[in-house]
């Protein structure tokens, strides 16, 4: 009976691993494509797919034939053993020896190419995209006196630092406030606790978009708009309901005896929170920090409305959107830009990953 169950689990394990691997491949393949594209030149990205960097078979020029000037090009012609009309030759005709005969150019001026099929791969890699993104695009400007000069556009570095300046407080603020609030809801008795908690949880469903205009007009009145404080508060405010809810579930599940023992020893709420609850809550705090970090780092809307796109303050997402140019003419730069913007979230995720898994499962089973 037991053995039977184990083998079933084993078989199921293989199946689920296979499914997981497949899902991972689906998720990673486009990312891999973007990575490859970020090392390719602009015109290559536009003309061929990223998979053409792998060896594949392609027709290659073996011989060029110039059709005789007096050749009648309206009828059937023969080159290198292939016979056909102009239209057929334009599409390409297989010669008996396995080579392809194809007419290149127009009827009057074109030439005939004999092609062989051979292995090829386009592996002309370049760092131009990264250079352009990291150091800024180059623009040539001539002033009214006719003096030419090359200007550099904004680079990613300043935007990267701006993003960091926005993200760190916007993560720490709801984390600290949320943990305190969660502890209060879980372990401090006060009138109306249930009602206030319900309201806070209810705020989870309020979409950020509907409050943009009222919040913005308040900010304008307070002179906060365009400052980092504005986004910190906005992100903290919208992040708090989730923070409180997530942390509450964890903190409320702590063993009562632990806290009671501390109270008996004469510890105040603040001491219990600082010395007992916070150290135990490491995993769940890390989980929330990852959530909030990735959310704020990737945020475009809140930054767009409350900070704007002045180069001095603009964040990475805004810079990325502008990198493609007024009409999207430089979209190939997005590949390199995206990878640079990904570096930090990836580092944060892998750095805190072990807490993340523990934090997600913690509190799910109450003992």
């Amino acid at each position, binding site marked *: 009976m037991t053995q039977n169950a184990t083998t079933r689990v084993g078989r199921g394990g293989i199946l689920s691993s296979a499914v997981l691997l497949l899902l991972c491949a689906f998720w990673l393949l486009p990312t891999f494509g973007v990575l490859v594209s970020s090392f390719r*030149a*602009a*015109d290559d990205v*536009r*003309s061929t797919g990223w998979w053409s960097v792998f060896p594949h078979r392609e027709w290659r020029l073996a011989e060029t034939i110039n059709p005789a000037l007096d050749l009648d090009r309206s009828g059937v012609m023969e080159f290198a053993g292939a016979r056909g009309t*102009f*239209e057929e030759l*334009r599409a390409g005709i297989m010669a008996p020896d396995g080579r392809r005969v194809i*007419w*290149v*150019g*127009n*009827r*009057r*001026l*074109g030439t005939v190419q004999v092609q062989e099929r051979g292995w090829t791969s386009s592996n002309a890699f370049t760092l131009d995209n990264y250079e352009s993104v990291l150091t800024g*695009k180059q*623009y*040539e*400007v*001539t*002033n*009214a006196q*006719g003096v030419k000069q090359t*200007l550099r*556009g904004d680079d990613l570095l300043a935007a990267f630092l701006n993003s960091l300046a926005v993200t760190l407080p916007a993560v720490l603020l709801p984390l600290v406030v949320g943990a305190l609030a969660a502890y209060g809801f879980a372990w401090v008795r006060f009138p109306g606790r249930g009602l206030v908690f319900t309201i806070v949880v209810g705020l989870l469903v309020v979409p950020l978009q509907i409050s*943009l*205009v009222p919040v*913005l*007009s308040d*900010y*304008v*009145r307070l002179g906060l*708009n365009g400052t980092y404080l504005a986004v910190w508060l906005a992100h903290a405010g919208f992040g708090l309901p989730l923070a409180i809810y997530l942390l509450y579930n964890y903190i409320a599940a702590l063993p009562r005896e632990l806290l009671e023992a501390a109270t008996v020893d004469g510890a105040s709420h603040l001491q219990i929170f600082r010395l007992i609850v916070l150290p135990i809550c490491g995993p769940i705090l890390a989980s929330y920090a990852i959530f909030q970090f990735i959310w704020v780092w990737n945020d475009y809307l809140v930054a*767009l*409305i409350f900070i*704007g*796109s*002045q180069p001095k303050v603009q964040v990475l997402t*805004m810079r990325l*959107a*502008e990198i493609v*140019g*007024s*009409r*999207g*003419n*430089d979209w190939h730069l997005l590949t390199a830009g995206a990878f640079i913007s990904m570096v930090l979230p990836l580092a944060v995720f892998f750095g805190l990953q072990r807490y993340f898994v523990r934090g997600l499962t913690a509190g799910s089973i109450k003992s």
Partner: protein
Amino acid sequence: MIYTVERTIKHAALLSAGLLFATSALAADMPKELADALAGKYKGTVVTAFGAFADADEVKFNENVKAFEEQTGIDIQYESSKQFEATIATRVDAGNTPDIVDFPQPGLMANFAKAGKLVDLSTYLSPEYMQDQYAESWIDMGTKPGKDGKPILAGVWERVNVKSLVWYPKKAFDAAGYKVPTTWDELVALQKQIVADGDTPWCIGIESGAATGWAATDWIEEMMLRTNSLEDYDRWTSGQLKFDSPQVKKAAESVGSIWLDDKLVYGGTKAIVSTSFGDAPAGMFADPPKCWLHKQGNFITSFFPKDRELKPGVDYDFFYLPGIDPAYGKPALVGGDIWSAFSDKPETRAVMEWFTRGDHLKTWLASGGTVSPHKDVELAWYGNDIDRGVAEILANATSVRFDGSDLMPGEVGAGSFWKQMTAWVSGQTDLDTALKNIDASWPSN
């Protein structure tokens, strides 16, 4: 004594103004605030500006205002947004309004004029002065009904681009012995010649993500101007003439005579919808060219392949898309950037007044990539032959009309018009249904 001092200041103002505007002797008298600003009266003030243009245009704008900022001490702080249309409404609603705003289309500006948010510029830019600076059609296109329904001067044009241009790969074009067509019949003959040579004449692509189809609306507008009267065009863009009218249908059918003919379009009709508007011209620069003609505004050169140095006038060039019916002359379809003011501070006035003067654009014209709508601009100021040629087409046009889809309400001009044209070209609907669907989407008020 005081009188003399004032006169000296005035003299200094005129002198320094003369330095910056040495070539504007022909232009009208300088407006008061601009003269004051050039005399340094508004030193230390800030004018916040907001607009949709970014990237190269933003760099050129900042470079262009530098001399003005240094002389006047007014700091013009330009901020661009990729989400301009969405952001500006939020900002105005919340009271976080910039001093001046650059609208890429007058339709959106008209909404703010109607809501009473814009300053009526005619309070300091007199009609006589404006007529000295701009051709009548530009003033008309900047005049919109205000809050009480009376027309106000809602904006002044800074830069324009011309859409009625056909680009071609000059080197291969000349080698093949083709001639630039100057009439519609010559264009049709050229198409026939290219087809007879076994090639396809046109590179056409209208894919543009969520905005797929906008390039098709430009073609319809070109044909409207070439097969119908200007009155009909104006009635059409203002909603009085239905899409489902013989006039608009005629224009669409003229487009269809090229677009729906597989022989005339590279990749066939089905390729039009799937080819990105930016990638479409690349076919012209293949060796040998896959297609020979591409109609698009002057901005398209920034999409040309970058792997080799394509030289204007050598590797590529353009010609004016010829008129069809001589009765309708040589119309030019244009787009452009128009500045409006949300504040009425003297330094804002000075900047707006500065925008009305052709010589304010000198640095930008020398840098290339734009065309001036001002009367007092000399062709010699243009830094390259392409821009100069475009300016000449604009100057020689018998009529100038703004991109119609930008004048229509957003639901149509940036919505159903794009979508239904795409559906028609891709064969999902027939022309009649497409045109009726657009009419149905026109907002009722």
